[in-house]
């Protein structure tokens, strides 16, 4: 068994034990971390692996959240049954966004997806017949099933979300390690080479968008399951920005990074608010800029570099792998010093 796998299993055990050691308030925060981690993972599949920027993943998150809320509140569906629906609808929406995205790159794609993020709350308000408008929509969280009645509500919701998160992570890890992941990275780093090897650029890019949006949608469902209520203010463009922050902080093109990133975006505002509500934004902004200068590969990238330090050759490999992701600019110069 590889060391990474052992580390993952230890992490999973710790994650399962976690709700029994914290207050109910903290456990709910950790439950949201799980939802954000899935969203960050989805965005990272797009940003880190396929190299397409999206500042609008909050829109897919909102779509997933509302699909679950509407199906539960208005049609009486069981919560878990709504998740595949949310994933499918978001995948379709992501695919639809992915098609015009083929013709846009970098800055322009950032602009268009930013528009998506900005329009989301307005669209939710406009279709108030379905979404409840500014009033929001209540979709009470699932209650603890009888055979697990030793769990408190918050512990049950946490474990339920963890049970959704684990397969999502396993799936993503498999996806990026295999043929698809290699193809995506080649599409990102050298499209011409990818084409030469017979990789269909358009198909891979649009599918990456679809999968990534589906992840955000599932994360949205997890959000609704946890909070039991959705309203347009929860899905402003700040949400999309924090997903980007999560990816950058955790580390581009890493699976584990999503967890660090999600912890960051959940807990920094919580602690910063003790000083001043606006401080969280100042820290977010500062950290985003700082990471681009000194840690363009995020927390996980740093961990990798530290681990590979004794092997000079190996370190150089890591640098090459990271380069395409982090950008020639900041990353390169930092290493050159």
């Amino acid at each position, binding site marked *: 068994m590889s060391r990474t796998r052992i580390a993952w299993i230890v992490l999973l055990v710790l994650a399962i034990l976690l709700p029994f050691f914290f207050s109910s308030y903290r456990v709910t925060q950790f439950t949201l971390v799980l939802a954000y981690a899935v969203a960050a993972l989805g965005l990272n599949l797009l940003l880190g692996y396929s190299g397409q920027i999206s500042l609008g993943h909050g829109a897919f998150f909102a779509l997933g959240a509302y699909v679950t809320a509407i199906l539960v509140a208005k049609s009486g569906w069981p919560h878990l049954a709504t998740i595949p629906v949310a994933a499918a609808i978001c995948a379709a929406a992501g695919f639809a966004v992915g098609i015009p995205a083929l013709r846009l790159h970098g800055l322009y794609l950032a602009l268009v997806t930013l*528009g998506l993020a900005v329009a989301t709350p307005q669209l939710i308000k406009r279709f108030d017949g379905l979404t409840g408008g500014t009033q929001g929509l209540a979709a009470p969280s699932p209650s603890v099933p009888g055979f697990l009645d030793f769990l408190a509500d918050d512990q049950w919701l946490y474990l339920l979300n963890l049970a959704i998160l684990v397969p999502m992570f396993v799936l993503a890890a498999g996806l990026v390690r295999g043929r698809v992941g290699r193809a995506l990275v080649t599409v990102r780093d050298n499209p011409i080479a990818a084409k030469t090897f017979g990789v269909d650029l358009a198909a891979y890019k649009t599918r990456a968008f679809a999968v990534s949006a589906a992840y955000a949608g599932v994360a949205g469902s997890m959000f609704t399951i946890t909070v039991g209520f959705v309203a347009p203010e929860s899905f402003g463009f700040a949400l999309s920005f924090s997903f980007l922050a999560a990816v950058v902080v955790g580390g581009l093109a890493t699976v584990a990074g999503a967890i660090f990133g999600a912890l960051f975006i959940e807990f920094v505002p919580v602690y910063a608010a003790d000083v001043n509500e606006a401080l969280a934004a100042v820290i977010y902004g500062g950290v985003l800029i700082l990471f681009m200068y000194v840690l363009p590969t995020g927390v996980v990238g740093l961990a990798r570099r530290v681990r590979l330090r004794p092997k000079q050759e190996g370190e150089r490999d890591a640098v090459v792998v990271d380069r395409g992701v982090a*950008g020639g600019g900041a990353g390169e110069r930092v290493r050159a010093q």
Partner: protein
Amino acid sequence: MERFVETLIDGIATGSIYGALALALVLIYRSTGIVNFAQGELAMFSTFIAWGLVEAGIPLGLAILLTLAVSLVGGMVIERVLIRPVEGGQELTLVTVTLGLFILVNGLARWIWGSTNRGFPSLFPDGSANLVGIGVAWESLGLVAVLLGVVGVLWLVFQHTTLGLAMRAAAVDPAASRLVGIPVGRMLMLGWGFAAVCGALAGVLVAPRLFLDPNLMGPVIIYSFAAATLGGFDSPFGAVLGGWIIGVAEALAGGYVDFIGQDLKILVPLGVILAVLLIRPQGLFGSPEVARA
């Protein structure tokens, strides 16, 4: 008919503000190839400085001039300190840094001044002038005049001074410019400085129409992105014309298309951005991007 003309004029007036901010975006894009997502927030911050000066008892005109000077220096410092290290880097790096700046500046403003709405005095007198039988608010005339003045000054600087020539050269070919002795770094700093001035102007012009709070420029920047995209990201005249077109389109759509109304007005600029990028990515007056396969 009269309502139509009024809507039109209102659109052009609002469009002038979008144009001023779009001009700021264009100035930075031309000199450093960066779409500055933080431009609106920098403008908001400048507007707060102007507000603070007015509160301190300085007359509005002087306060605005002082603000423009502070913005010029501020823009230059930001370029030198925050942007220079990542210049020429990958697009994701650039987007992330300017987004970080966006969040940082917005947070700073909320920290310093809080989130309450504040009134901001207008530069222009109330009432309206009578132009061929149609009443046009002084404010609308003033907005258009200020924008045209800014464009005129920029045109003179860029086309008829050595400094402007050096700035254009530094933007087009930094390496060759260095060889002929142009301090390229300082030129890029100036580009950001000029942009900050344009942004500050847009801020103090729009603030009396809305309320001054840290989210002042949130909607405005989207319209300005649309204006710059429509006009072409590297064309100053395109930015101005784009601003007017977007302003008029917004006013007409909000007033005449029932489905859109006030709630979904924001979809107008977004639709324009998407349509332009798909049909004519270089915009109306921009130069097309050429890539070597």
